């Protein structure tokens, strides 16, 4: 059973590695470095202004550690088919789950260590703690996380009837009490308390797990949700087949479609517009990029930099929209409807023009507000107009024509 987990883990890690490569592309790493640099600089500035004896400092510490404690879930890698195929092996599953918990510790505890490490300067400056005290808090935090993961493991069994041992009130209360003692009283007391709880749970588990059934359905659901969360995150950067975009009715946006008259020429405009507005994949992407772009443009000022940034974001949006053209290729009717392919391309071009136009306009307004410079605003407008026109009317049809040719 440990071998089963090992082979699954290998497959899982291979998959994660594949996606992580895509996530940490050059552009993202670049942006991330900027962001981290900025945050680090801000943090060090805040530290300089801090004095001892602020009433809110311990509260912040407890809150940060409490939230961090919930990071790093119990990764079981259990699959839907397991409740059929592994059911006869239920007793042997314990070894599997223990191996899973061991693996889950890695990422979870690394997170705890990093966060306490980041908090260390704050603890020193705002609370005046010594190094041994900080290390003590770190140890308490790690033991607490160990306990929480143990509770997760215990909850995989139907030990306590309908009640689960890892209900969120239990998890949060346990963390809150221990950390509060650690911060306000002394971290060494927190260590003792955390150790005590951990030991009790461990002994109790040792006695009980063998007589119990696994909550297959629930564990599968939990694991599915966990994976979905990960895939959702990857989906921000790249296409993930496991995430099917959800669809929302968004009735309040129906007025957007009013201008599309139900004529033969507009068939694809009809489909594309509704697909864009109601699907969350592409519309989410456009909204996210536009908002990030606007925020960045508000803070980044200058003569040329805003123009360059706006142009970059318009390009990113336009580029990411391209696959939407093929969104409906797997619906057979897209191929069967007696509609000339040119009409489909025309409709798509219009959609791209409209979306990029609105995004460009919004960013342009932010540029004006942020810079209050007639020259920058004027140049930005010209650059954006040319870019939108080029992307929508020249680049998009060319790229799509090439993609269609490659397919045929």
């Amino acid at each position: 059973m440990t071998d089963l987990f090992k082979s699954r883990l290998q497959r899982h890690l291979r998959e994660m590695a594949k996606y992580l490569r895509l996530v940490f592309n050059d552009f993202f790493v670049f942006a991330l470095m900027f962001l981290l640099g900025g945050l680090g600089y801000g943090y060090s500035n805040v530290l300089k202004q801090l004095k001892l004896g602020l009433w809110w400092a311990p509260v912040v510490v407890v809150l940060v550690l409490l939230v961090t404690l919930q990071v790093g879930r119990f990764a079981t890698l259990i699959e839907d088919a397991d409740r059929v195929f592994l059911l006869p092996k239920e007793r042997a599953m314990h070894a599997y789950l223990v191996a899973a918990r061991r693996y889950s510790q890695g990422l979870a505890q690394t997170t705890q260590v990093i966060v306490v490490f980041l908090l260390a300067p704050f603890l020193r400056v705002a609370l005046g703690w010594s190094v041994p005290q900080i290390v003590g808090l770190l140890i308490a935090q790690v033991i607490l996380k160990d306990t929480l993961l143990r509770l997760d493991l215990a909850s995989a069994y139907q030990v306590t009837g309908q009640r689960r041992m890892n209900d969120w009130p239990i998890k949060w209360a346990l963390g809150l009490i221990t950390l509060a003692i650690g911060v306000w009283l002394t971290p060494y007391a927190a260590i003792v308390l955390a150790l005590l709880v951990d030991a009790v749970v461990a002994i109790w588990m040792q006695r009980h797990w063998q007589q119990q059934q696994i909550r297959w359905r629930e564990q599968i659901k939990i694991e599915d949700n966990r994976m979905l969360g990960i895939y959702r995150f990857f989906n921000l950067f790249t296409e993930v087949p496991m995430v099917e975009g959800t669809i929302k009715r968004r009735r309040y946006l129906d007025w957007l479609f009013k201008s599309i008259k139900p004529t033969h020429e507009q068939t694809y405009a009809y489909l594309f517009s509704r697909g864009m507005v109601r699907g969350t994949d592409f519309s989410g992407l456009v909204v996210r990029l536009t908002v990030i772009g606007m925020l960045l443009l508000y803070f980044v000022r200058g003569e040329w930099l805003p123009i360059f940034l706006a142009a970059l974001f318009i390009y990113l949006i336009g580029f990411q929209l391209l696959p939407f053209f093929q969104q409906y290729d797997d619906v057979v009717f897209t191929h069967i409807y007696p509609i000339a392919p040119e009409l489909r391309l025309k409709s798509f071009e219009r959609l791209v023009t409209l979306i990029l136009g609105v995004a460009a306009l919004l960013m342009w307004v932010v540029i004006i507000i942020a810079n209050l410079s007639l020259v920058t605003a004027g140049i930005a407008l010209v650059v954006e107009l040319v870019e939108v026109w080029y992307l929508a009317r020249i680049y998009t049809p060319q790229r799509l024509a090439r993609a269609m040719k490659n397919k045929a």
Partner: protein
Amino acid sequence: MALEVSHVVGGYSQIPVLKDISFDVRDGELVGLIGLNGAGKSTTINHVIGLLTPHKGTITLNGVTIDQDSQAYKQQIAYIPETPVLYQELTLREHLEMTMMAYDLDQKQAWETAHDLLKVFRLDNKLDWFPANFSKGMKQKVMIVCAFLTQAKLYIIDEPFLGLDPLAVNDLLNLIEQRKKTGASILMSTHVLDTAQRYCDRFVLLHDGQVKTEGTLSELQAALPEAGESLNDIYLSMTKVDRA
């Protein structure tokens, strides 16, 4: 002669699934395409609706091939797939409207037809539903309504009887009967042989990518006198030749 498939060799890749297939569907005729799993029924249908291009041979629909005028060719076809596929972001109402737009139908008239069809298939109170809320059978009914909205000359129906409730099967058969009277042709693939035997005018028996026999039930009986009376018997004897 509505549909004429002549000497078609084709398939998904370079390896042909269909080996020189010929048959036709005349005006006002319901032709059953019969064959085992993997015999080439769906491949044939995919060629007819233009998803696949034949390696050799031609498919003509009322004198037009898809290469000559793909618009005119596609305009004449309505297709009901075996597994229903819908646009996830469109409501039932919007599916109907989009079909009308795609086939350039007169909206007012088409909506009258649509409302009649919706009532028959008990979908008239679900116009604002998304496909995600429909059961498989309901989705299939949506496909039927969309297809019969179009007044096409040729209806292509892939295995319609599985997944539909008995009432809907009956309604579909009535609808087919009604459209046949107006001169439309239907090419239908199915495994439900006793229903096929009762309703189809002619049969094309496919086996291993070839047309084994073709004709009315009495023609088939005459061609294979020792096989038996029913379509089922004939079909089984045809497949046995290969197994022996």
